[in-house]
């Protein structure tokens, strides 16, 4: 098993916490933490983007972590690269555990298996001038919980197995670190290319709902802009750059 160099080597595990991201941000404000420091929690009660997880899920059902990085080499306007790299790292981790399934990134950075969401990512940065200074990377992955929401799925739902989270965390951390180091060593084009390689619906016609009019439509996913907008090509030839709240996948 690969061992991460610095991601998660300093780790604080909490039995219960409101949000690992908030906890880590408060900790950064009060003391200096080394890059790669991670918070993990057996149970997160109010994490944003809960993936439809149950309030009364057993402790240690799912991966809940926040990691501190210092991507000072990225401009504020390049920050979507971080989103791409983290999505790639999480995707790679899930793919290792599900070698027979197609594990894809759903715009902008959800991870999707069998048409359902298995992981969500929430990144909070602080900016100093035009550069990123700290980045708190929150990751939730459905592992052992039997998901009740129709749009969510867990590893257990797919394989029927139960997983020991303590064995999984180092694997996740090394997958993330590998992608982060790609960015840090300026292999930005490789990260962009890999992100698109695993992108759900690329060069395909996909059904969407316009969130404003509630009308459904079909458009071709032509790519993603540098800042992360979805590039859609409509049947009549018009191309639009789509922001997050403008459309929903059907």
């Amino acid at each position, binding site marked *: 098993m690969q061992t991460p160099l610095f991601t998660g080597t300093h780790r604080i595990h909490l039995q219960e916490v409101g949000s690992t991201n908030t906890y880590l941000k408060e900790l950064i404000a009060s003391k200096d933490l080394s890059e790669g420091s991670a918070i993990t929690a057996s149970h997160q009660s109010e994490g944003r983007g809960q993936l439809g997880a149950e309030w009364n899920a057993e402790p240690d059902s799912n991966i809940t972590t926040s990691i501190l990085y210092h991507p000072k080499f990225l401009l504020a*306007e390049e920050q979507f690269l971080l989103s791409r790299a983290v999505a790639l790292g999480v995707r790679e981790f899930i793919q290792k555990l599900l070698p027979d399934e197609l594990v894809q990134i759903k715009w902008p950075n959800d991870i999707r298996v069998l048409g359902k969401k298995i992981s969500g*990512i929430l990144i909070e*940065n*602080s900016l100093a*001038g035009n550069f990123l200074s700290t980045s708190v990377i929150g990751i939730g992955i459905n592992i052992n919980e039997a998901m009740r929401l129709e749009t969510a799925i867990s590893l257990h739902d797919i394989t029927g197995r139960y997983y020991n989270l303590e064995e999984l965390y180092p694997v996740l951390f090394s997958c993330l670190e590998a992608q982060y180091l790609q960015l840090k060593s300026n292999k930005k084009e490789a990260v962009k290319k890999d992100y698109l390689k695993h992108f759900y619906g690329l060069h395909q016609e996909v059904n969407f709902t316009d969130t404003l009019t509630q009308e459904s439509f079909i458009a071709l996913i032509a790519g993603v802009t540098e*800042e*992360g907008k979805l590039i859609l*090509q409509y049947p009549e030839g018009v*191309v639009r750059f789509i922001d*997050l709240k403008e459309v929903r996948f059907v």
Partner: protein
Amino acid sequence: MDLKQIQELIRFVSKSGVSEVKLEQGDFKITIKTTNEDEKKFFPQQYMMPQGMMMPQQQSAPAAAPAPQIVIATETPAAAPVASTEVIIKSPMIGTLYRKPSPDKPPFVQVGDKIVKGQVLCVIEAMKLFNEIEAEISGTIVKILADDTSPVEYDQPLFLVEPS
């Protein structure tokens, strides 16, 4: 829309083989027309349309022009006059401005507040990335130039600060 986005759009349009793209975002309208026949192979459904109906612009466009033509019509509000000592804190990115840490909490800063270097002034969100914008100088907030939950552009003035 800033210059970088326009460049990106032009790059995309010229690669895609689309003959004409019209984009509207609020006051901003942009039309990009291409003239290169050979590059029209990316989207096969274009060929199924009667040519005269789909690409009327193309016939009238100058055939020799290698680069897409751009027509830009945009309105930018005039910048507010600034006293010489005051400093404008600008948005480092495109996104949605949040002046509060969460909807039920008070704003990070108000007019008249003393701020110190490194203090969080607001959060700008783009594509699920949340960015705390820190003050680069210490001073007093003189004016707040962008509303809570409003979209902000790159380099858009956010705060007017009297340095201390």
